[in-house]
């Protein structure tokens, strides 16, 4: 933690050198730190969206959860609205920071009605004056996310995946937050429903001015909604740029491969495409390669890559890349 770090007052959320290590038992008494997130920094302005992409297991969820203090970060600074987020301040900030979860099934309590699920944040923060007021607020939220108000007394298991996700979004919106972490909020949905839900996220942003950290493993999904995109690999940030810039001019070898990582059923098209096939598996975060984390799969890797970890450096217009050779 850096006590002298001063956040930029323009940023709603600012994360500086966030680290989250999980102790993993390796023997009877010995533990090894699993570096799920290892020095990630980013900032989000009010009403803006930052997309966070990377393969599954690279630490995206952990970033979101440490940021919102579901986990206690091992190190690093998180600021919200200029205030440091720590155990003392988080209670007052809960209202302003919310989360939408990945799994539309396990994120809704099967024993509660939709009304009580959406009403829970209202109950916790005592945000209503009477039962009637509570009900009115809940119905308004349901309407906001496109749910039929008549279904307020139903149980979550009676809804489809997309509708369940809307319930989760209504719950996140209940306290009128300024920032929402959307952790793969559309990944579990059918493609057609994905588009609907993403559109709704955008609509809500325009109406309510809420900022998002939009996590996904699909660059295309993130591109659609984000102003800026950050690419993660093995707990580290490897590239960050404005969404269009990243799409048109990806620099880091990992980002390039992500952008082309789509299977082609047509062999002729596949041959002629400049598809970059990533070889090998993601190394275990317990046995992180020395130097650049991507070097075990990178075709540009040199000796320098093994010796030293490249830092994120600005390549103009805020396009930051962590790579020695690109």
């Amino acid at each position, binding site marked *: 933690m850096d006590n002298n770090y001063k956040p930029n007052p323009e940023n709603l959320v600012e994360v500086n050198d966030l680290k989250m290590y999980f102790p993993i038992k390796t023997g009877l008494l010995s533990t090894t730190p699993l570096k799920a997130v290892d020095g990630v920094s980013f900032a989000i302005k009010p009403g803006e969206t930052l997309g966070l992409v990377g393969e599954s297991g690279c630490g995206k969820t952990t970033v979101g*959860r440490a940021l*919102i203090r*579901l986990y206690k970060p091992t190190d690093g600074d998180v600021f919200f609205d200029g205030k440091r987020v720590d155990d003392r301040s988080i*209670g007052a900030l*809960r*209202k302003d*920071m*919310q*989360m939408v*979860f*990945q*799994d539309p099934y*396990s*994120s*809704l*309590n*099967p*024993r*509660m009605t939709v009304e009580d*699920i959406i009403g*829970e*944040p209202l109950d*916790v*923060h005592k945000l209503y004056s009477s039962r009637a007021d509570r009900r009115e607020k809940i119905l308004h939220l349901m309407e906001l996310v*496109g*749910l*039929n108000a008549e*279904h307020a*007394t*139903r*149980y979550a298991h*009676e809804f*489809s995946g*997309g*509708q369940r996700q809307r319930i*989760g979004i209504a*719950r*996140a919106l*209940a*306290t009128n937050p300024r920032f929402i972490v959307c952790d793969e909020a559309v990944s579990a949905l059918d*493609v057609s429903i994905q*588009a*609907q839900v993403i*559109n*709704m996220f955008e609509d809500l942003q325009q109406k309510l001015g809420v900022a998002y950290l939009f996590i996904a493993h699909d660059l*295309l999904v993130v*591109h*659609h909604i984000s102003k800026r995109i950050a690419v993660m690999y093995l707990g580290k940030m490897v590239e960050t740029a404005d*969404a*269009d810039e990243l*799409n048109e001019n990806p620099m880091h070898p990992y980002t390039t491969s992500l*952008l*082309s990582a*789509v*299977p*082609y*059923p047509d062999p002729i*098209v596949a041959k*002629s*495409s400049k598809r970059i096939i990533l070889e090998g598996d993601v190394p275990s975060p317990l046995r992180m390669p020395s130097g650049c984390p991507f070097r075990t799969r990178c075709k540009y890797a040199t000796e320098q890559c093994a010796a030293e970890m490249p830092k994120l450096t600005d390549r103009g217009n805020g396009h930051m890349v962590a790579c020695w050779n690109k």
Partner: protein
Amino acid sequence: MAKEAADVNKMPKKNPLSLQIDLQKFEKATDEEKTQAEVMSESTSFFRDGMRKLRRNPLAVFSIIVLIAIILMITVVPAVVPYSYSDIITVNGKRDKSATNMAPFTYSKMEQKYIDEGGKVFPHIMGTDELGRDYFVRVAYGTRISLLVGVFASVIVLIIGVLYGSIAGYFGGKVDLIMMRIVDIIYSLPDLLMIILLSVVLNEVLKFDGNGILARLGTNMISLFIVFGLLYWVGMARLVRGQILTIKQNEYVLAAKVSGARSSRIIRRHILPNCISVIIISAALQIPSAIFTESFLSFISLGVKAPMPSLGSLASAARSGITTYTYKLVFPAVMIGLITLAFNLLGDGLRDAFDPKLRR
């Protein structure tokens, strides 16, 4: 219209060779589509759904009927039958010394004489015991005591086990580690030996005066309850802890934390409702096991204090004349069998109907 077109143009360009979905082909969902006014099936709560399944299970329904019949019997019989469990039968105000060890539905000489003279004598449905007490009333009382012991013991187990297990499971980590090692130690204590030792000690220490239920039950029963409170909750605690560890992983618990809910609210609103069925099932299965323990203790004369009967002490007393008066063993033994069987079948039925792991 123009706005919509602009929206479409804002979408990212697709790499022409990519098979990824082209977002430009997507249309904005209309408000109508967004409302998704789907026709939904009749709303069913978890509880109603479970009850429906329970009603369809013949064994469970049978055991519910048996249990209701037994409960009716133990409440109605002592009120209707004009004999008491502790007093020798009196005929017309006089003690009937000859009315011992009678077979079911027979009358003693004194009673026969009284009937011949025009008096009315309530039949001895199960005969009488060796001291001349009506056996039907004693069996009804014994069942009452045994059931009370079973229910009370499992309530003790339920309360302690749920509290302990939910604290260990919810807070996890070091708290869990220490609490579960204590459970392991308690698990390894020999329970019957503890009951015997405790009742010996309590017999010396505790003196109950008067006519309260505790005094009438005797110190043996108190020590049985204490031992249940001290030892038997560990199984429940383990079960609850395991359940909570699993439920804690669900994202709805994280969502409640993000909403700012405190631990007590999370346990109350999210965790307990999702493991309550498993807990209740296991508490229902605890009742016959407590009844069995009580019967066993009474059988080795560590049970309820005479003249209070329990099914176990009745069975124990019946041993002496087992060849001549077999019925005296049959009645309490059948009662014990019926109760334990009914609770076990009901517990299984509840599990089939309500255990979330077995659903769908």
